[in-house]
């Protein structure tokens, strides 16, 4: 009985808000922002909300889109994965947004996927992730493993990277590190690295007592072969990890640590002097000198009224994603989801590091890959970059189960086309 009453109430509320929004719809185009502003992930996601507000503000100053003003609709999914799905539904069904920019963790993305499919809307996902996915309604502007993990390992195997022979794959225990490490292990073995020269270790979320792990790394590294750590340690656990590395005197010249989730923001809470020379692999660094990046940093620091505010890789992904969406809407002449989705592949926008990123048919984009060394001031010194832009690969070629899969939403209209069985629908 109670649930029926609730349902009726919800329906009534929904109808009134529907009416209200349809009135407003005539004047504005709404853009949804789905980033946690409270809870564990607020540390990373709040910045992305701010950058979206800046981009939307910017676009409105240029005259809006299709002659209408853009309007940001900000919701707070509070680092709570089921709440992400609820808030996504609210954004699409109730607020009638034309596109959503949001999510950070893979589990939050997986949680909103069914909603975006059911209500047929568009999600721009700005964070590096484990790949093994391509959905019609999602555009992945962060790096796939082949745009971050594989080039980083290639660098460490090169002469400049120190010709590393032994590998520690250290990660937080969840889907992104597990999948990435699976891909890396297969890749390293394909390069002739023996199984006993690879050590894989996982720690829980928010892990803070790294003594045993760091001394195990030191021990593994004293076997006479050049050793490196590939870290997929996520979020809050990084600070105690790096503090322990610094305190136990693990120097980058002996055992370099290359991280995939440590950027300028994370280093802001650390004394970086003991970490000099440890590495990070990203598609963007604040310290990259290009006119576009200089202008972007200036605008961002003016927007946040903080001359020390840092920029990072997922922010650039949102910049690229937003510009791509704007171009696609202009090309399609409408915000209708199907037409914008069809218009997006092939759209080109300049990125902040001097190249031009293209949206591919598999809904991933082309990106350059940079390796940066941590400097004493918490910024990165670029020591290596790929010669061109690397196209994102949705399905890794190094995992046997995903090797035959291909994603192509333009010709095949399929996110997991199996080239062996010639069928859409996975392995």
């Amino acid at each position: 009985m109670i649930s029926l009453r609730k349902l009726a109430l919800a329906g009534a509320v929904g109808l009134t808000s529907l009416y209200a929004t349809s009135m407003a719809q005539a004047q504005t185009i709404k853009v949804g922002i789905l980033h946690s502003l409270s809870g564990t992930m607020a540390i990373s996601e709040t910045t992305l909300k701010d950058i979206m507000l800046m981009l939307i503000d910017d676009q409105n100053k240029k005259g809006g889109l299709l002659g209408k003003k853009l309007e940001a609709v900000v919701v707070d999914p509070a680092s709570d994965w089921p709440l992400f799905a609820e808030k996504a539904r609210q954004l699409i069904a109730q607020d009638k947004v034309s596109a959503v920019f949001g999510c950070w963790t893979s589990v939050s993305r997986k949680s909103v996927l069914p909603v975006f499919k059911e209500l047929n809307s568009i999600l721009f996902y700005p964070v590096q992730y484990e790949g093994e996915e391509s959905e019609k309604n999602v555009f992945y502007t962060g790096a796939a493993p082949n745009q971050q993990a594989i080039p980083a390992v290639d660098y460490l195997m090169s002469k400049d990277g120190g010709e590393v022979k032994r590998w520690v794959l250290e990660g937080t225990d969840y889907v992104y590190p597990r999948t990435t490490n699976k891909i890396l292990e297969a890749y390293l073995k394909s390069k002739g690295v023996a199984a006993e020269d690879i050590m894989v270790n996982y720690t829980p979320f928010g892990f803070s007592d790294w003594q045993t792990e760091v001394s195990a790394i030191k021990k593994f590294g004293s076997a006479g072969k050049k050793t490196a750590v590939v870290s997929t340690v996520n979020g809050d656990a990084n600070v105690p990890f790096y503090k322990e590395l610094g305190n136990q005197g693990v120097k980058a010249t002996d055992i370099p640590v290359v991280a995939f989730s440590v950027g300028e923001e994370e280093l802001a809470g650390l004394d970086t002097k003991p970490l000099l020379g440890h590495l990070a692999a990203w598609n963007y660094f604040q310290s990259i000198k290009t006119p576009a990046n200089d202008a972007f940093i200036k605008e961002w620091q003016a927007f946040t009224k903080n001359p020390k505010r840092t920029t990072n890789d997922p922010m650039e992904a949102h910049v690229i994603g937003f510009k791509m969406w704007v171009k696609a809407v202009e090309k399609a002449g409408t915000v209708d989801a199907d037409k914008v989705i069809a218009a997006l592949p092939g759209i080109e926008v300049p990125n902040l590091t001097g190249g031009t990123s293209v949206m591919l048919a598999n809904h991933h984009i082309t990106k350059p890959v940079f390796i940066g060394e941590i400097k004493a001031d918490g910024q990165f010194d670029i020591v290596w970059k790929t010669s061109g832009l690397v196209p994102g690969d949705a399905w890794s070629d190094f995992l046997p189960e995903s090797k035959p899969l291909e994603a192509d939403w333009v010709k095949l209209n399929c996110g997991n086309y199996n080239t062996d069985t010639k069928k859409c629908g996975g392995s």
Partner: protein
Amino acid sequence: MAERKAQLVRGFASLAFVVFMMAVAALPALAASFEDTLVGFTADSFNDTATAMSAVTESGDPLAPQILGALGDGRLLFSAATKKVYFKDSTDKLFDAATGAAVTAVAPGDLSPVRLNNRLRGLLSAALGSLTLMAPDVAKRIDAAETVFKSRDITTLPALDKALAQEKNAEVKEAMLEARAAIVIGAPDTSPEHRLVAITALNTRGDGDALVLLRTLPADVPANVKQAAASAISSIEYRLSIWANVQNLWYGLSLASVLLLAAIGLAITFGVMGVINMAHGEMVMLGAYTTFVIQEFFRAKFPGFTDYALIVATPAAFLVAGAFGIAIERGIIRHLYGRPLETLLATWGLSLILQQLVRTVFGPTNRDVGAPAWMAGAFQAGHISITYNRMWIIVFTIVVFAALLALLRYTAFGLEMRAVTQNRAMASAMGIKTGRVDALTFGLGSGIAGIAGVALAHIDNVSPNLGKAYIIDSFMVVVFGGVGNLWGTLVGALTLGVANKFLEPFAGAVLGKIVILVLIILFIQKRPRGLFALKGRAVEA
């Protein structure tokens, strides 16, 4: 000259850049060529820097140590326009790297530092190592010997032997002998006697590096050498396995101190008062943020005394968290005594409010609490490295625990507190203001949590989520140790910490934690009141 040439030829196999050294050595006019070698630094390419670096090392120019030292510290600058190289000394004065003359005419604006990567840093420390083997400073000589040990570069052998012949200090001599052993043990043309000396030196060193080196012994050595190596290997392995246990014990103690520190405040509020305080972790967080604020204040006003900020931060954190605790007790918990479920929900809601409050005031990103100089780094005790911050946290925990025990045992407030928790009605009849004691007790527990925050700020994130990570562990320690008993909390923390660290190397951090949780659940089934249960009338009250 012949000796030098032989030395170069031997190095050829191991180091590719030696080719360049020979070219440099062959150049007739050294003074003119030195400036030319420096041009490599101005190309902003790692390969050119590497060749320039080795050329400078090989040049024997008196400025070489200064230039290499400046390169390592980022004080070597170049001008891309004029292709000139300069270095700064520690007082920011500029010198021409080619002549060593002081320079004033160049605007610092168009100078940029010569960049290094890890490969170059490695090469540089090896080059500096052979240059500083005869440095007057003992610590520098040991560092240099250690660098040579790591690089195992056979070209440094003559320099090493020369330094060894002059060395008087026993400690440095030992380090140099180990370095020499590392070089000669695997070399093909070493005599059996030298190999035996090397094996003895490595056996004395006795760490993982020595073990690896002993295993690189070529196969064609005499039987007695082989046997000496084998017995050295087994002796080292035995010693290392004992040290591994000592290390686990130390790490266990360290984890236990952190657990105890986080749980000890809860042992008061939950253990003694029986309040299920879900906002306990947030008190820890408030303490950590207080430390941050005090440190920032010192950085801004008294930059010379930042290392002493902790002395102010500890009582400040106690007062801030204690004041919050008293306010919470008077404002909320007072009205909920005897209703554990409501208390739990109310304090949980409060914890979320406090987290968001801190997030709004300080922002969601981590804050940097820097360690004072005496808390940074590590020292070697046998074959384990003991980090200073962990060691001081253990000391700090012992002090806090002892102070708390003394407070409860010897002060009037402690007496009143025990009286109220044991028999409220009787205490009230004796004229003790129970409401006041309740508030102060809760304030004390929260204040201790704040002090824990001071220590945890040095090993964990100072972020709004700091407290959440410790609340479960704290409850676990208190429940396991026995509610209402501080000694139980101590034993509980020690047991959990040490058990966790002995499990971790075998089971991994994730599985280790699960095993511990399962064991505690089983234990609580058997002894619902924990390790040290209070007996008698106090339990019923």
